[in-house]
């Protein structure tokens, strides 16, 4: 039985070699180049470029908006996936296909369309804009201790909410498409068994369904978040891009490239990359923890 340590499928060496080569060419070499360019600039120049107050504020906007958008997508993406898996209704296939549209649409087109909709003279903006401004104003009145405007802006388009709207739009498919197959795997018999054992609907949801989809939901959240952090094309048209308010980090990268400051641009990119990597790592650990927790 000396063969027992071997895999049933041959070719491990070949496929691993190919995987490493492929990842090397597609991912590691470009990223290595990025770090190499940054490494050439010295620590002082690096901190000056990457931790300038304006840049630091843009990190907060980029990561904050991406986090909020991914969170919203996690909730409503789960809902959409649930509806698509558990019910049959006319037009289901159309809705299923619609979910993928944000994948396919060029992001600039999405940005322009969203800006046209949510602008003060747009279909949605013309009536929702005053409501939103009132909403933020009343929050400021009710809880004056929190600087609501700084978090929520006071306009829908061309302010922080615009960034949130664009990032929610582009991130939705990631959650739906990761959760959907997992939901399909959960057999309805499990729920029926829970019901016969006396579980209420809420208990079934909390104890049976939610733990099963949680790892997939976290993956979907992470993908949606990662996609949103680096998004440029759709955001610039609707963000307003005001420094210290609604300016995302990629806009500053473009500004630095425009001034031929390649090193400064890569410095910001490096910080974003490292931060994203750490966050994704944490999310992965969290996901593994929920899986183990679930199994125990």
């Amino acid at each position, binding site marked *: 039985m000396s063969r027992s340590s071997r895999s049933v499928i041959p070719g491990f060496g070949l496929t691993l070699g190919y995987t490493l080569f492929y990842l090397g060419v597609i991912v590691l070499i470009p990223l290595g180049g990025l770090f190499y360019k940054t490494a050439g600039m010295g620590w002082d120049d690096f901190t*000056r*470029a990457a931790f*300038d*107050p*304006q840049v630091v504020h843009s990190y907060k906007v980029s990561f904050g908006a991406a986090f909020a958008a991914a969170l919203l997508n996690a909730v409503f993406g789960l809902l959409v996936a649930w509806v698509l898996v558990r019910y049959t209704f006319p037009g289901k296939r159309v809705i299923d296909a619609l979910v993928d549209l944000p994948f396919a649409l060029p992001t600039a087109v999405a940005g*322009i369309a969203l*800006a*046209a909709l949510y*602008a*003060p*003279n*747009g279909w949605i903006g013309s009536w929702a804009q005053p409501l939103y401004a009132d909403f933020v104003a009343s929050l400021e009145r009710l809880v004056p201790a929190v600087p609501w405007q700084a978090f929520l802006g006071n*306009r829908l*388009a*061309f302010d922080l909410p615009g960034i949130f709207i664009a990032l929610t739009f582009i991130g939705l498919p990631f959650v739906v498409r990761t959760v959907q197959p997992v939901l399909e795997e959960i057999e309805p018999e499990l729920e029926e068994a829970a019901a016969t054992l006396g579980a209420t609907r809420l208990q079934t949801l909390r104890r049976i369904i939610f733990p099963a989809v949680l790892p997939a939901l976290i993956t979907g959240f992470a993908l949606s978040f990662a996609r949103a952090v680096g998004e440029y094309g759709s955001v*610039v*048209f609707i963000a*307003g*891009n*005001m*420094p*210290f308010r609604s*300016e995302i980090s990629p*806009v500053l990268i*473009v*500004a*630095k*490239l*425009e*001034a*031929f*400051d390649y090193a*400064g641009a890569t410095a910001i990119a490096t910080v974003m990359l490292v931060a994203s990597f750490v966050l994704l790592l944490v999310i992965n650990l969290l996901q593994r923890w929920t899986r183990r927790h679930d199994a125990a």
Partner: protein
Amino acid sequence: MKLRLFPVLAAALAALSLAPAAHAQRAARPVELLNVSYDPTRELYTDFNRAFAAHWKKETGQDVRIRQSHGGSGSQARAIIDGLAADVATLALAFDVDVLHSRGQLIPADWQSRLPHNSSPYTSTIVFVVRKGNPKGIKDWPDIVKPGVAVVTPNPKTSGGARWNYLAAYAYGLKANNDDHEAAKKFVGDVYRNVPVLDPAARGATTTFAQRGIGDVFLAWDNEAFLALREFPNEGLEIVVPSISILAEPPVTVVDKNVDKKGSRKVAEAYLKFLYTEEGQDIIGKHFYRPAVSEAAKAKYASQFPAITLVTIDEVFGGWAKAQPEHFGDGGVFDQIYRR
């Protein structure tokens, strides 16, 4: 193998059939030029290229095909440095052409003295576009810093054209305050405090103002302003000419390294010289640029350009090499506006 063989065979056949023809017509072999330009010149050069192709055909019997590339002035300059084989560069500001020398070594340092009028066959300036009936009563620079007036202008750090807007405002600030730079900085700061949206590029700002209904006044090149009026006739937009503005001189140059490699120097130089002829200057005026050299074209189009005091970047700001880092560099005057 069959599939691989096919293109090779096809290419060989094509070469065989073309070779004698090419040999026979060596003198009149068509030539191709690539003009790399900035955003708003699209319509100007489409028209101009047609005229030049006819002119060149008449002079030499050779066909010339001109391809155009348009985009933000800075990114176009970067594309040329990174290897875009431009024969001529016609950009928004001298700074972007300077980098072709300083970073790309593609043109000599004295490029700007090779053609008349600082190598700028046309000039332009910054004017105001306001809404129908000018409801906020905007007449001059002090009106746009009043509270409650929203100003639309792109981000000067990403848009070459927007740097002219900024410098025009600064020039007014200097003039109104006896050349006090601190007061001028404060004035420019007040202008940008009234800016609700900083678009990354000029065309985006036009959309924001004309289509999204944002802002009361839009700072624009005068040719862009005329274009906005023509493109959005239902908005009833109006042009307001301020008391003072800046003379924007978009320069042109042959990209020496590229034309020498391609052997297209002769036609590329003729192309740029044609911009200075009566015919070229007339096309320039027709597209709302200010003809720089032809007195006839200046007179013909004088009515569309109201009289306005124009200052140059050289006399007020000491040239682009000085103004660029001082105002638009990291931590420069523009960055300081948002830091206070």
